[in-house]
């Protein structure tokens, strides 16, 4: 019989519930109303915002390719920077969404995954912080315009944490050579989406 290690288990469920417990019941106007309150609206926000989702998955894959230590750093740096960016964005909202920069950021991450860039850990963490601050800032600006509160922002960074942790752990756990290639192919897809998106932006149909 295989035993279950409790410490990670405890943290996993606990972190989710802790965020949930802080949930006040008042809901406001949201970007997307799930009907589940602003926390879940924030969680879902990541999944319906393709540039954000792609940058989070891409960084997870990249961190996984660079090993477990790098993944550990990124798994905390990205959500933390994301939350900081969101708060900054909600306090000093920008009226623009900067689609150029969000596209370039996820596209560049895709390229790094595709070429299997083995970045040193500090560089990777800095990259994650930059991407997190920037995407979070755009998130925060748009969220505050739609009336989402701080709790929604916590929800968004919780889901960033989920995506980055699960995707980097997936890559770290892969042993088969072909599976690591599949990761690089996924990176190439993300880069390709970024390139096409740049084209659409030039054409003004983003």
């Amino acid at each position: 019989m295989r035993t279950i290690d409790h410490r990670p288990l405890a943290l996993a469920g606990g972190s989710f519930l802790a965020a949930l417990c802080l949930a006040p019941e008042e809901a406001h106007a949201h970007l997307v109303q799930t009907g589940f309150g602003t926390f879940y609206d924030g969680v879902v926000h990541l999944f319906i915002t393709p540039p954000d989702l792609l940058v989070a998955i891409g960084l997870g894959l990249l961190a996984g390719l660079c090993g477990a230590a790098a993944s550990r750093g990124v798994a905390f740096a990205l959500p933390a920077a994301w939350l900081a960016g969101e708060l900054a964005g909600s306090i000093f909202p920008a009226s623009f969404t900067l689609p150029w920069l969000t596209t370039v950021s996820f596209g560049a991450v895709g390229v790094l995954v595709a070429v299997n860039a083995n970045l040193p850990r500090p560089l990777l963490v800095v990259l994650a912080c930059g991407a997190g601050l920037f995407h979070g800032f755009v998130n925060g600006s748009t969220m505050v315009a739609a009336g989402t509160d701080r709790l929604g922002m916590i929800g968004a960074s919780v889901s960033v944490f989920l995506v980055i942790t699960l995707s980097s752990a997936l890559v770290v756990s892969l042993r088969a050579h072909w599976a690591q290639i599949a990761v690089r192919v996924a990176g190439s897809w993300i880069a390709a989406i970024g390139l096409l998106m740049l084209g659409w932006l030039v054409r003004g149909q983003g």
Partner: protein
Amino acid sequence: MQERNGTKKIRRVPGRAAGTLFPAALALLLVPATVFAHQETGSITGIVSGLKHPVSGMDHILAMISVGLWGAQLGPPAVWVLPVAFPMVMAFGGMLGLMGISLPGIEIGIAVSAIVLGAMIVTESRPPLWIAATLVGFFAIFHGHAHGTELPAGSSGLLYSIGFVASTGTLHGVGIALGLVHAFRGGRLAVRAAGAVVSAAGVFFLARIFV
């Protein structure tokens, strides 16, 4: 890489178990994206039309599958260099098209790509990797230019691109999977025969342009 070996000892999860569980996890993560996507107007049409477009034209299907087939025939490292490089180069072509930079002879280029790729498979040619990659990349630009740019009105370019890239990549996967029969005795012949079919189709496409 050193770190990864280091952590191997700490982990108690067998790689196989984790390997089966995590794809399920990622699928789980992507479910909300599809469930809630309908809340964004026109998003479903964008993704669906992006997914459908690459499989709606025979020329594109055949070229993508033959990239996979040829890769499988060449074996590593080509079998993975081609599917990694192709989407990016194709997207570059698409970007040129979207920026309004026109390329001469797009249709001819696509037809020729089917002929050449088919011929490579039939003859089992093994050029150096960089030549194979350049050849495939050259054709990829034409495919991207011709197909990546046909956005239906009212849908988002980003979602269309996601669908388009995913669908094209899946076609590569199909090609590689078909190419796996290469390992079997009769399979080698079958793959070469498939190459011949692709070449013949390419000739037909070319003829259709001029006639």
